[in-house]
């Protein structure tokens, strides 16, 4: 296990280094931040001053080395726009995105697993067919459209939920969380559901496929022959086995949810990292873009690692392989 972890960490470091170069080059190629940031009324003298102040007068390789040197010391640069450390800006926004992503994942499991289980156990019932047909919608409807429809129905027409934004927050461990207040939950429901929509469909389909496959296995047949109650067969023997693919996919999806919650965050004016990154791209705030992408790279590497470890906990075969 230690060798495995060590190998994975070295791989991770290499990936981070290569990514930093790619990200830096990519961000550099998009455009000139000075043209975007500077007041159009600024004269040539002022433009030259700004180029110098932001360190954009250096050649690209030098800019990269400066960035790398600072990054090794834990400094990912200062935002051009906010004049604050890029990392601080991102971390400030992180709780908002995390609670949105966790909310979406929890919703996906709470809604998706029972529905998928039902559809798998009773594949021919009209309800199951309805569930499966609806899940196609969840896959294919664009997030921004569903988000706007949710707002139109639940906020504008019915007035049940607030349309946009994040609710009241409480500070825990120096970070602001909104899921602990009533107002915060009210604000969280729609964006989390919107973000979960795709995932719910995914979980339904994975669960259903898993159940249908597992039900035909010999050990299930044996368990039933032994006279175990259907509930025990379903929830102990079947359920445990279908969890492996579900955990893998939901785990990987979780990274994607955090990294790409951009659309939901901008439709619901949710002040998370996704909104920060899209605003930063719009004004070519390079340090924030680079820092964000580096964070996401780290996040994916960590999630993959966690998924691997969870695997070994869920599936004894993986554990045994490791021991040999």
């Amino acid at each position, binding site marked *: 296990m230690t060798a495995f972890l060590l190998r994975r960490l070295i791989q991770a470091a290499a990936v981070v280094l290569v990514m930093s170069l790619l990200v830096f080059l990519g961000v550099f190629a*998009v*455009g*000139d*931040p*000075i*043209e*975007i*940031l*500077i*007041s*159009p*009324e*600024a*004269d*040539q*003298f*002022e*433009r030259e*001053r*700004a180029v110098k*102040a*932001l360190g954009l007068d250096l050649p690209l390789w030098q800019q990269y080395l400066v960035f790398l040197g600072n990054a090794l010391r834990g400094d990912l640069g*200062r935002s*051009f*726009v*906010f*004049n*604050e450390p890029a990392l601080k*800006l991102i971390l*400030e*926004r992180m709780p908002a995105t995390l609670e949105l992503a966790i909310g979406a994942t929890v919703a996906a499991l709470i809604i998706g697993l029972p529905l998928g289980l039902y559809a798998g156990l009773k594949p021919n019932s009209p309800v199951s067919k309805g569930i499966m047909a609806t899940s196609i919608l969840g896959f294919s409807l664009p997030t921004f459209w569903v*988000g*706007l429809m949710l*707002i*139109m129905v639940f*906020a*504008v027409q019915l*007035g049940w939920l*607030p*349309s*946009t*934004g*994040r609710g009241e927050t409480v500070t825990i461990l120096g970070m602001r969380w909104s899921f602990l207040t009533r107002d915060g939950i009210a604000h969280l429901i729609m964006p989390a559901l919107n973000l979960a929509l795709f995932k719910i469909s995914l979980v339904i389909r994975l669960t259903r496929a898993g159940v249908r496959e597992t039900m035909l296995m010999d050990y299930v047949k044996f368990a039933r022959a032994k006279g175990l109650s259907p509930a025990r067969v379903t929830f102990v023997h079947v359920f445990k086995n279908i969890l492996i693919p579900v955990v893998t996919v939901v785990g990987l999806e979780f990274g994607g949810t955090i990294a790409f919650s951009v659309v939901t965050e*901008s*439709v*619901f*004016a949710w*002040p998370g990292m996704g*909104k*920060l990154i899209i*605003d930063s*791209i*719009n*004004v*070519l705030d390079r340090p924030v873009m680079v820092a964000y992408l580096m964070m996401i790279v780290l996040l994916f590497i960590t999630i993959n690692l966690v998924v691997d470890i969870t695997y070994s906990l869920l599936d004894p075969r993986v554990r045994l392989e490791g021991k040999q």
Partner: protein
Amino acid sequence: MLTFAPLGLPRDKMTVFRHAAGLAAGLAIAGLALEPAAAQTLTMGVGAPVTSIDPHYHQLSPNTAVAEMIFSALTETDSRARITPDLAESWRPVSDTVWEFKLRQGVTFHNGSPFTAEDVAFTFERVPKVPNSPSSYAIYTRPITRVEIVDSYTLRLHTASPYPLMPTDLASVMILDRETHANATTEGFNAGPMAVGTGPFRMVSHRNGDRIEFERNDNYFGPRPAWSRVTYRMITNDAARTAALLAGDVDVIDQVPTSDLAKLRGDQRLTLAETTGLRVIFLSFDHVRDDASPFVTDNDGKPIPRNPLRDPRVRRALSTAIDRNAITERVMESAALPAGQFLPEGSFGYVPGLNPPRFDTEAAKRLLAEAGFPGGFRITLHGPNDRYPNDARIIQAIGQMWTRAGVRTAVEAQPWTTFVGRAARQELSAFLIGWGTSSGEASNPLRNLTATFDREKGYGASNRGRYSNPEADRILEQAMRELDDAKREALLQQATRLAMEDVGIVPLHIQKNAWAMRRGFAMEARADELTRAQDVRPAAAR
């Protein structure tokens, strides 16, 4: 200071009286209104994120709007962009190179620190020194060579040469307090402790990119704002902003999308505040190259050895071929006015009678033939697709109009971040771009858009097509030394006329600005697009 002591007492009494009157009025209103608590709070939804609370860090309209709620400058622009007093009560040039400002007395900062001429001097020192500023306000303070403090409330600003724009420029420079802000950092402003000004509101909290909360500054020297608390929310998605208004989560929104205007206008629960803005949308041409221009070819796709866009007849033909009314009425859904110059009617330097050319495809064809292009040519028209309302659709419409006049036009719309760099590097032949004249007077677009690119003079920095007209330059420079307003306006009109008759740029339209609000709210719509809480008030009861 002693001389002002006797004045102090009555002024304090005045304040007390005003408070008492305000309280009485408040009670009267509270007695009548059904929801007295709600009546005093305002929630605004704005479309562009505020990036900094430091008023000297990043020049950007949303930042200016918020700065004008917390801070004050020596002068201010009113809703029609005319200069009015703010912290300065009056000003005049005492000689060709000296401006004298008389300051308002008895003003205090939010923390009680008094405002004096020392604070102005301190502010002018700080402005160019703000570290890492991506767009400094130093362009407004640089003409000042020396600040002379005559007394606590009189200030003389010395310049190297006559500088008529001093009162205009200083409207952008928010005054800070020498005591409070001596070591203020941009982070200090964003976090809150340094957000101390003399403006109508105090900042209570700031959540970057999300919302800013304000409360009324009861000691404000100007008109008392109608709101005791204001929430300023940033909702960048157009549809979400409109939905937030319809759901009643916000009371006012800005940047109403043109496609929603008709629907919102018909909604009984809402009202709109609209006004002609100061942003002109125009086409710019490649004036750099005498030989082949990168996106101009003949009808067979081969480069043309001479750049047709250098010929004023070709430029006039292209302008004549555009049906501006069709664009403003259909593409812009009447949220714009056809334009033949930089500014709307009523602005300083507006040229009466300088109208856009009458749309005439045949006349355009004749002009092209005269210029030696009877069969026209091919061109690619570039533009942004995420910057101005309907920008990509406008260039598509123009592409069709030009093609009808014989200039076969391809259209390429790109994201602003990519597009603007290409335009600034003179990589394009013809492109659409906009200009907001926040100062509301004509020297601003003349200096930046059509004056010859000149690093030493600091002119033409946004002249991306590199148009050059020495005669217009000469008149502009004369105007920039002219302290007499009437004479200066005449010169600016003359320079504008020269640049427009030579078709240096092709103005298309001037945008209208629109805010939508729930019934029961009223707002003074500003030409400069700023969304400020002090401009909103409860609608008069009917």
